[in-house]
């Protein structure tokens, strides 16, 4: 290991032989200390990975207990969720159906609005409009989910009930609207970043050929930003699927496979949140809820990995290279 003369001069009070360095921090050369500091920071970087591993570990630790008695396919495909009956039923198919229904419908609403907002901000808005509206979208992103759940429950549900003469306003449709509001800022800001990243000289080339701004947008920029927009949509959907408070307060709470958008459902996160409070620690129901957590975790992990793959794979399209 090289010894830098300056480093030694700075540490006249500390011995600097290799033997002393091995025995403790005091007396380490500065270079050796740097190595340890570097290692420390690498460890800090890995911390997220460690946490992910711990999440998997503990979810499985608490959730796998269910599968001593019940089978995995009974759990995933069972049509009845009656955890408090005797004997209890732990089939989560209706819960999965509920999650799928609200995620799908909210995406139908959120994708056009989110991408539309991104296109507006990227291409139509003037500078002053953009300066106000872009932070406004960020503000929308900051609204706590419990607030959206509250508004959906207290404002939208009674309105819906009255307008369409339905038994309850707490249903798939309501939850999808509120979830869409949560997903739109995510979709909009990632899409807008993707549009922004399309190289300017391609835009110029298109305009110089006599294309209108719209034609440049649809033929050059959106195709160039496609992978980013795709990522945005998938992350938005992942967000909608994992959201708890909105579906807890607004989706209705009935553990059934929905027949129409006005039916109540109980998506996966809502089930966990609603029932954990009353479940005895370590009971079968407790394990079942953790098992639902595993399913939810794996689903959102799947979405996020797909998004990461798309954004990585299509990284290199765009600029001309010399």
């Amino acid at each position, binding site marked *: 290991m090289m010894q830098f003369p300056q480093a030694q001069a700075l540490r006249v009070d500390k011995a600097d032989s290799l033997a002393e360095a091995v025995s403790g921090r005091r007396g380490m050369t500065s270079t050796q200390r740097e190595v340890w500091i570097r290692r420390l920071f690498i460890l800090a970087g890995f911390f997220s990975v460690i946490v992910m591993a711990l999440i998997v570990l503990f979810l499985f630790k608490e959730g796998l207990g269910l599968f001593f008695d019940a089978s995995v396919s009974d759990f995933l495909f069972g049509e009845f969720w009656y955890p408090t009956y005797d004997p209890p039923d732990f089939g989560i198919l209706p819960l999965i159906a509920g999650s799928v229904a609200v995620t799908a419908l909210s995406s139908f609403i959120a994708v056009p609005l989110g991408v539309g907002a991104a296109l507006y901000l990227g291409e139509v808005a003037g*500078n002053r409009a953009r300066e106000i509206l872009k932070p406004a979208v960020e503000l929308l992103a900051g609204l706590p989910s419990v607030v959206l759940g509250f508004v959906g429950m207290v404002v939208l549900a009674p309105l819906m009930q009255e307008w369409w003469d339905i038994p309850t306003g707490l249903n798939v449709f309501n939850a999808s609207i509120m979830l869409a509001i949560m997903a739109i800022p995510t979709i909009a800001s990632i899409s807008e970043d993707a549009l922004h990243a399309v*190289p300017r*000289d*391609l835009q*110029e*080339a*298109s*305009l*110089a*050929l*006599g*294309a*209108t701004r719209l*034609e440049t947008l649809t*033929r*050059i920029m959106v*195709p*160039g930003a496609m992978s980013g927009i795709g990522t945005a949509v998938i992350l938005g959907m992942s967000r909608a699927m994992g959201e708890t408070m909105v579906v807890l307060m607004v989706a209705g709470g009935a553990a059934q496979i929905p027949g129409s958008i006005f039916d109540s459902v109980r998506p996966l996160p809502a089930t966990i949140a609603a029932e954990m409070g009353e479940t005895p620690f370590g009971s079968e129901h407790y394990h079942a809820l953790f098992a639902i957590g595993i399913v939810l975790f794996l689903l959102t992990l799947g979405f996020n990995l797909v998004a990461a793959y798309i954004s990585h794979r299509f990284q290199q*399209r*765009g*600029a*001309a*290279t*010399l």
Partner: protein
Amino acid sequence: MVSATAPASAAAQAAAGTESPIIEVSGLDFYYGDFKALTNIEMNVKRNQVTALIGPSGCGKSTFLRLLNRMNDLIPGTRVEGSVVMEGVDLYGQGVDPVDVRRRVGMVFQKPNPFPKTIYNNVAYGPRLHGVKDHKRLDSLVERSLKASAIWDEVKDILHQSALGLSGGQQQRLCIARAIAMEPEVLLMDEPTSALDPIATGRIEELVKELKLRYTVIIVTHNMQQAARVSDETAFFYMGKLVEMGDTEGIFTRPNKEQTEDYITGRFG
């Protein structure tokens, strides 16, 4: 590498320079916000000739070039005063759509910028914008443009491969083909070879001399030797003003203004 319409353009060539100018610029001032970047430019551009714009960095030659196809409209806070008249129409007049201007005045940029599409689709991009859908018509347009850009032989078998796989020099010739597929009247070239190696540069200079048979070419270059090789007329810009303009040989051997002479002899720039 002679263009298919040689006979017609030879006649045009003979008439070149004697007809009315294709572009007349009068009293042109250009402002970036408060900064006056161009002052009182008066210029007549002769048809079917190559006009070179030279001058030191920052003198306004590229800015001026971009005024001719209204690309500066894209920069907020800019202002144009004066007129740029092409075939009787003031490009900056009321009711003139910049999109239309850019159809008639094409541009090739300093750094080749082909779209991440196939070679064919790059060239067909412009015509498709205008609604040309007929397969055969597009095919012949693409072939004609690629031939006129002296690149047909190199790409005729790989038309449906990505344009990004071509070398820098090939990409630039592709960009030229893309621009002339629009059949513009004037072709603007903004330092088209500054990012290319000497061999590619040479090929493009040859190409420019052919292009003038069908188009009027205005080329900005920071390389005086290139201007001398390629152009018929040269305009010297300095600090936002058009200092001197005349036939190329005259400018380079017997410049009238001292500034021109200083620049040409390398005393600054």
